[in-house]
């Protein structure tokens, strides 16, 4: 059992312990916080030893571990990381700590709540370290049922149960599409290289005198969309995005943070790992143009929808859907900097989105409303949140100094050559997002306090309470000023994983 498996076990064991032992009151919170902090420490340790843990032989991954699990299905427990997965592991751990950290107020059945949170986090963590396609699928599904329960039970509105069901059905439909796509891909592989092992597949793709694709080109054309839309539904790609804002708006804060910050990134990770590399012809075919149109819808159309929203959580939800468009743009650029930018944005957006939902959840808890027309002047009563939200607004708008800027610049540079028109239209999205974010900032935090609200007393926040927010924002600023910290991890990973770029 190496460090990866150990780190994966931490939230799982934490969830089981919280479920089994009769913890009272805040004990469940502290237990979950301990587990998540341990997980973060272990992840940092992994990052620390990452450079020295050189891959064995011609392996592409480090810290590889392998156990056969279900031999008849060719299913095995195979985990390992490269720079891409490490980036996302760090994201997962940070957001988990923050999500658990801001949930100290949960009073109702806290044990189930925190066990569920840790399970979601374990699912995401497991998915990012999986090197086996089916293992990746199973880990991604692991998060589904806890999400359903958490939104349905602890959600914030009266119709949360309907929303929880809708979200679960959408995501299951997506994962079934994905399952069919993966199975079809698996069975279309020539028998001598038929495996779910991603590393082996990738190696047979780059072996000397290897075929240009793993399966026939005519097959790639129909398997590719299955996998693309299977992951796409989870990422809230344009026509399938409606579950996301509703889900995030009604979810408890911590779940919205984890889902928008981490789980959604899993879909993108899947596209980067699977469909773009193993189905190169499908990725370069007319599906690329379809994807280009859809991602513009994400950026522009959903951006305008976000502008029209009055509810803060809905606005943030649509904004998070809209930003997925940039990441798609980076992915279809098929250039080193474009894809690296996409992964960088996954990281930065994960922090921004979860911070946004954390602030919105805090405001809702203190004022009882998220309607931005009912709010105003909160900078007087919660100055800390005002500063934070201002930073989130600027980060979302792509201002230099935050990770988002570095990422978006990389994406636009990468995509310019191949998708000039798309890039130009997509740039307009930056304007849209600055409009709605800054407008929200003005409505909620600036101006005078609305008469409906409590008198303008400063709501005090202890330093401990502030820590989760500070954790998120400081990482965002650090990578904004020092993008090379992450890029040095991401770039070699991308170079190594993408055959077409490597050659």
């Amino acid at each position, binding site marked *: 059992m190496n460090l990866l498996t150990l780190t994966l076990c931490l939230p799982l064991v934490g969830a089981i312990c919280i479920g089994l032992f009769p913890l009272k009151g805040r004990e469940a919170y502290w237990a979950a916080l301990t587990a998540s902090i341990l997980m973060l420490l272990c992840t940092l340790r992994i990052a620390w030893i990452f450079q020295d843990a050189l891959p064995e032989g011609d392996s592409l991954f480090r810290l590889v571990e392998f156990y056969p699990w*279900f031999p008849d299905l060719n299913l095995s427990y195979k985990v390992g990381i490269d720079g891409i997965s490490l980036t996302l592991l760090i994201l997962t751990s940070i957001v988990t700590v923050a999500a658990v950290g801001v949930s100290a107020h949960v009073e109702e059945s806290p044990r189930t709540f925190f066990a569920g949170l840790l399970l979601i986090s374990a699912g995401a963590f497991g998915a990012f370290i999986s090197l086996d396609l089916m293992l990746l699928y199973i880990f991604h599904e692991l998060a589904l*049922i806890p999400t359903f329960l958490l939104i349905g039970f602890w959600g914030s509105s009266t119709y949360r149960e309907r929303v929880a069901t809708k979200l679960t059905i959408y995501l299951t439909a997506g994962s079934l599409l994905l399952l069919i796509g993966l199975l079809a891909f698996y069975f279309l592989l020539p028998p001598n290289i038929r495996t779910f092992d991603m590393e082996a597949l990738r190696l047979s793709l780059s072996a000397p005198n290897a075929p240009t694709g793993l399966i026939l080109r005519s097959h790639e054309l129909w398997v590719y969309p299955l996998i693309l839309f299977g992951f796409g539904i989870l990422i809230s790609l344009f026509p399938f995005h409606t579950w996301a804002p509703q889900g995030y708006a009604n979810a408890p804060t911590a779940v919205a943070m984890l889902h928008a910050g981490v789980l959604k990134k899993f879909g993108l990770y899947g596209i980067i790992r699977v469909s773009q590399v193993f189905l190169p012809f499908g990725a370069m075919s007319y599906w690329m143009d379809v994807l280009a149109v859809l991602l513009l819808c994400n950026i522009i159309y959903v951006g305008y929808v976000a502008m029209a929203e009055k509810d803060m959580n809905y606005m943030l939800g649509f904004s998070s859907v809209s930003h997925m468009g940039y990441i798609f743009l980076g992915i279809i650029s098929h250039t080193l900097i474009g894809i690296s930018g996409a992964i960088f944005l996954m990281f930065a957006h994960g922090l921004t989105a979860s911070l946004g939902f954390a602030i919105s959840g805090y405001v809702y808890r203190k004022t009882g409303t998220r309607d931005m027309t009912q709010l105003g002047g909160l900078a007087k009563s919660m100055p800390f949140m005002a500063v934070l939200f201002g930073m989130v607004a600027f980060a979302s708008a792509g201002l230099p100094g935050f990770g988002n800027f570095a990422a978006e610049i990389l994406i636009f540079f990468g995509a310019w050559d191949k998708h000039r028109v798309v890039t130009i239209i997509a740039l307009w999205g930056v304007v849209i997002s600055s409009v709605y974010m800054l407008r929200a900032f003005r409505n909620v935090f600036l101006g005078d306090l609305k008469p409906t609200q409590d008198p303008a007393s400063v709501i005090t926040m202890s330093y401990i309470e502030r820590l989760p927010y500070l954790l998120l924002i400081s990482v965002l600023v650090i990578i904004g000023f020092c993008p090379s910290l992450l890029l040095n991890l991401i770039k070699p990973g991308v170079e190594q994983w993408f055959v077409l770029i490597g050659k």
Partner: protein
Amino acid sequence: MQTLQYFVAEAGILVLALGLLLYSAFVPNTCRKTVTWLSIGVLGALLTWTLVSMLPATLLFNDLFIVDSHAIFSKAFLIAAALACVVLAYEYERFLTRNYVEFISFILFALLGMVLLVSSQEFMTLFVSLELVTVSFYVLVAYSRQNSKSLEAGIKYLIVGALCSAFLVYGIALYFGATGSTLLSAGAYLNPAPTLLVLSAAFLLVGFGFKIACVPFHVWAPDTYEGAPTPVTAFLAVASKAAGFFVLFRVIWSSFDSVFGQLIPLILVLASITMVYGNLAAISQTNVKRLLSYSGIGHSGFLMLALIGLGTERWETVPFPLYFYLTSYLCATFTAFLVLIVISKVTHSGNISDFNGLAKRAPFLSFAMLLALMSLAGIPPLAGFFGKFLVIGDIVDLTSAGLLSNADFNINHLPTIGGTHMGTALGWITIVAAVFSTIAGLYYYLGIVKAMYFGKPEHPDKISCSTLTTLCLAILLAGTLFLGLFQSKFHHFAKHAASPHVSQTPR
């Protein structure tokens, strides 16, 4: 005496059933606890014996009776189902207005019929065993005589059962006409196979279609399931259905090997309709037993897909998914029915609203129900997911390899059925239907989960359950969670089940 060792399970069940019947006839105040534990003990011993005895494959009684690894696995499965059913009956006991011991003995008679059925190697034996099952179920379904719903269920089951027997007899007659023998292996020697044999296969499929409740032979199932006493419903839903599939496997494998390829399009269409219909119809149900019966129809569709491979050259892959799916279905379904019985003791209605707020009243029961439902819905990493995965995986394999449309491997096929592309197209349609029905399934399973976790409890009191129930639930849950770990055992049985079996080597 040499042959008796192949016959231990049947003999044990017979002795137990007759003994219980006599006991209830001669002892006025029967002790229910003793009877329950005695049955559990005997069935447990028989289950262990069946699994560990490792008998070589043999034909007995002038080829009428076969003991091979398919029969052994089927017997173990059915005995395990009966074991769970006895626990259910014990929990259910206060609703039984009439003799409890007699109830148990009828369950055992039905079980006896089933274990004989899966070992039959000849159509007359098969038919008589099947009638033993059916007649026992006539009594069991209508056991709560004072309840009009139970009577209605009994009548419906009786009429449909008679119709089904008629189809079976007709099919057997045609089979005899085609082969001149009632031995199951007789069909395999016909080369080329006559059209009469195809017709006979179709009739037998209809007959067994009633047993496994596939559309359009399903109409009896919801009413019967709803009206029957809940342990009987569970036994019908799991054991009777599984026995249907076990015997279908044997009949197709032994007798209709040469003609089944031609029936593949038919099976694909029926399976698709069954999956979609069962899962869509379940959505609007408010009664949990009806809901589970419609969902059971949906599961029958999936199980039919598992049989498709028998008509292609990939026949050796068939038994494993079938066994695995059925076992995961057993664990989840019995869990659901057991929880339902415990709850309906308190609430008495059997509606989904009974489950409102169950998470607060009985955390363990609702957790068990959650896992069972999610396993039925096919959410990884529970056993139900692997079952669905294996079945869908095989269909995707067959379809993408073009095996469904290629009938050349059949010794004799009708060129008019199954054009070059028709099978493949149907294969993809079936896969879409499977995906669609899984999503629909998730919706209504989540409905119960919603009631359990988000609903408001009607009473604040806790619901407790007996030690026996807790133990049984724990075992079933362990099965749901960790079935994947035991797949080598399944594989052992599956490998020998599809190896060229004894019946095909003439003695």
